[in-house]
């Protein structure tokens, strides 16, 4: 790559993620946002077009190195949208949009290619981004704030594994209401244990069950509240492995499944099939069967998938900082968040 220096920021971000210095999607989001601000305010670009190219190359880079990572690209996609908007408002030009009508009526004169440089573009974009940053920071707060709308007294809520957002959500609710939480331990990470411990600390009656007991317990559960890794364009989820089964069980007992998700988790990607390489990833089998098991390992295959694909019909509600939405509405949110052209980069 010729301009290694320019891409250094993003590559550092990538390596940080790889080095597990950044783990929570929230941190990644903030970090990305800062990175972009940096880029926009300091980076050498003349026109919106150049800037967009800069961002796009970064997105590509992330895609190459971290195919599973969704947050960073989404943030950047959104930024692209911001840039477009700012540009349009700056240069009184309308986006040619998607509809045939506009395609046709568009005359060369008013086609906008983001090429011409505008004076106050930089500052305006930065302003816009800072707003966005505030939005990000307050996001999980806003989500938690809705807790009381969803949790009533003495109900039994089931959650899987560990999610900071869910934790916050439940704890907030626990301030004014008493209810029971069933935590599924979520093998092979068992981060459900940490979750349970912390919930119990803040005085929530917590029960820990193994993944196998989900179906058994589900008949008594009133709500399933989970976090997710990504929300896909069709309203499906890419969530921790095991959640598909949970969602199915919930469906069977028609228990509502609520997914807490920040805006930056909505990504405009579709999946062909759940086993798609790009979609799922198998990590070290050690979590499932210890290396010391011996010769038998040579003769068996062991899968330790990280994600599950949860089809949209199993999800009842998405709760983002803007409030609740049904899966069928996701495409709408997406078109608000990102620009059509930036969907697949």
């Amino acid at each position, binding site marked *: 790559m010729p301009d290694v220096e320019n891409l250094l920021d993003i590559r550092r971000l990538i390596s940080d993620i790889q080095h597990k210095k950044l783990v929570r999607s929230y941190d990644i989001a903030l970090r990305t946002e800062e990175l972009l601000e940096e880029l926009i305010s300091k980076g050498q670009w003349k026109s919106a077009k150049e800037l967009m190219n800069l961002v796009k190359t970064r997105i590509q880079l992330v895609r190459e190195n971290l195919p599973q990572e969704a947050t960073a690209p989404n943030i950047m996609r959104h930024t692209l949208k911001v840039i477009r908007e700012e540009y349009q408002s700056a240069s009184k030009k309308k986006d040619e949009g998607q509809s045939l009508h506009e395609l046709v009526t568009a005359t060369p004169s008013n086609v906008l290619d983001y090429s011409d440089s505008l004076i106050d573009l930089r500052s305006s974009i930065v302003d816009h981004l800072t707003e966005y940053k505030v939005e990000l920071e307050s996001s999980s707060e806003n989500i938690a704030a809705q807790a009381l709308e969803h949790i009533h007294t003495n109900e039994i809520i089931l959650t899987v594994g560990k999610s900071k957002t869910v934790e916050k959500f439940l704890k907030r609710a626990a301030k004014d209401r008493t209810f029971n939480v069933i935590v599924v331990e979520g093998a092979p990470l068992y981060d459900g*244990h940490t979750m349970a411990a912390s919930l119990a600390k803040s005085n929530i009656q917590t029960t820990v069950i*193994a*993944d*196998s007991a989900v*179906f058994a317990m589900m008949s008594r559960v009133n709500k399933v509240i989970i976090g997710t890794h990504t929300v896909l364009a069709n309203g499906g989820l890419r969530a921790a*492995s095991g959640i598909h089964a949970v969602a199915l069980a919930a469906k069977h007992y028609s228990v509502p499944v609520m997914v807490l998700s920040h805006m930056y988790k909505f990504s405009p990607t579709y999946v062909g099939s759940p086993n798609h390489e790009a979609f799922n990833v198998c990590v070290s089998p050690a979590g499932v069967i210890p290396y010391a098991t011996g010769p038998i390992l040579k*003769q068996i295959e062991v*899968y330790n998938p990280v994600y599950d694909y949860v089809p949209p019909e199993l999800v009842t509600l998405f709760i983002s900082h803007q409030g609740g939405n049904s899966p069928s509405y996701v495409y709408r949110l997406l078109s608000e968040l990102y620009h059509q052209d930036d969907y697949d980069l």
Partner: protein
Amino acid sequence: MDKMKSKASTDGSTKKEKKNKRKQSKDSQDDVKPISNEVSCEDNKNELVDEKNDSTKNDATAQKLSEKELRRLEWEKKLQSQKGDKEVTTISNTKTTQQQKQLSEKELRKLEWEKKLQEQKAGDTANSALSKAELKAKRREQQEAQRQAKLAAEKAKKPPSTTPTKDTAKEVSKVEKKTVPKKETKKIIDLHRVQLVQHLYAEMPQKQDSKLLVYNNIHPAFVKLGSQYLNKTILGSNARTLALMAALKRLIYDIQTPPKQELCRYLENVLQTCTNFLQNCRPFAVSMVNALRNFKLHSTQIDTNLIDSEKKARLQDIIDVYINDDIYKAGDAISLKVNEKISDGDVILIYGCSSLLKKILVDAHKDGKKFKVIVADCRPLLEGKEMLRRLVVAGIKCTYIFLNGASYVMNSVTKVLLGAHALLTNGYVMSRIGTAQIALVAKAYNKPVLVCCETYKFSERVQTDSFVYNEIGDPDLLSKTPGTEDPSPLSKWKENNKLTPLNLLYDVTPPDFVTAVVTEIAILPCTSVPVVLRINAIDTT
């Protein structure tokens, strides 16, 4: 007699001596034919005595000593040796007293014994054979006394596992840890019960040892069995039933009907206490209940004026027949039926560990079918590992996943085979926790789900959720996380009474997840369980 003497004399053997020795023995046999079997039965019962010292040899050889004296003498010997034994295994006073009690009642029994023998002596050689049999029995009794004492002593020392567990050391330490704060932990446990499952039987590790001690006068085989159930060394309904049957046989073999009592009647009482004891160790599996019922049913049908040994024989083969027909033959039949359904290139998903499934798959493999098996497994029991090993050993190509991975692999699966703990009248399948989930996922990908289950596991019970009847396993199993060095944050759950690990053992699978149930009778939909039950009911009566 002279035989003995000559033997004593012979060491470096020259042919000459050998010759006349053989001659002597020969004619001795010739002229003392009638007593020959007495001789044999004599040194039978001497087994405890004669090694003691030469003196015993002498009185062994002293032909004319009456049986009675002999026995008394032997009895003293036994007492001595037992005392010796007592000293060897140093045990708490309670134990010794208990043992004494055993001994005393043993003495009683002995007396009955001798009476009986008297009568038999009166009888001709025909029942001397019988007396022999009973002598054997008696001997065994005595040894049990030993063993029970031993066993009790062991209990006193290290609580569970009369069977060698891999790390008794750890066990011990664990228990010691627990036994110290026994009182309050117990309280906490109660506090810690999830309301939903308050009513269920919960296994409490810290009570294990005490449990085994409250009962005495249980046949050792059952004591052992109990502990094996308790610490889950015997797991899975088939194995549990088989073990129970084995113990029962043992019991029948050893049992001594007190005078003016009918064997079956007496046996029933004894059995009752034993089963109570077992129940206390761990609730019965449906299969066990059925098996016992069957046994009782048939035992009542034995005509009462047979002599005990024959009754015993009858009882024994009631059990054998049952084991053979309802378990093994059934297994074979099922295996055949399923194998018709397994074809080359199949990918078969199974869950946990089931002897029946193992058998089926191995058979299929032997038939040269080319198929892959995916073993799904889940904490805390991780039975799947066992299954995996067995299949791999059998040379079947396997894949191993956790339950969470089920959705990931399900796409590639062609059939799902499941074992069952019991099949309920309303068509629900009761099985190891997690089975329902597998079935659920399979349904979602609409893959055929076959539940393999012998009809002797069918139950009249009706159940629609997993709470009404279930068991709760040791919660500590959940708080242990494998692999990681640092203890899981759960490990201190006892301190925080808001935090409760819940470890259910079974769940029920609704019939609409199950394509069919494979039984030895036929492949049928779950819903036709009651029909089968009817049939069984008819042909058993």
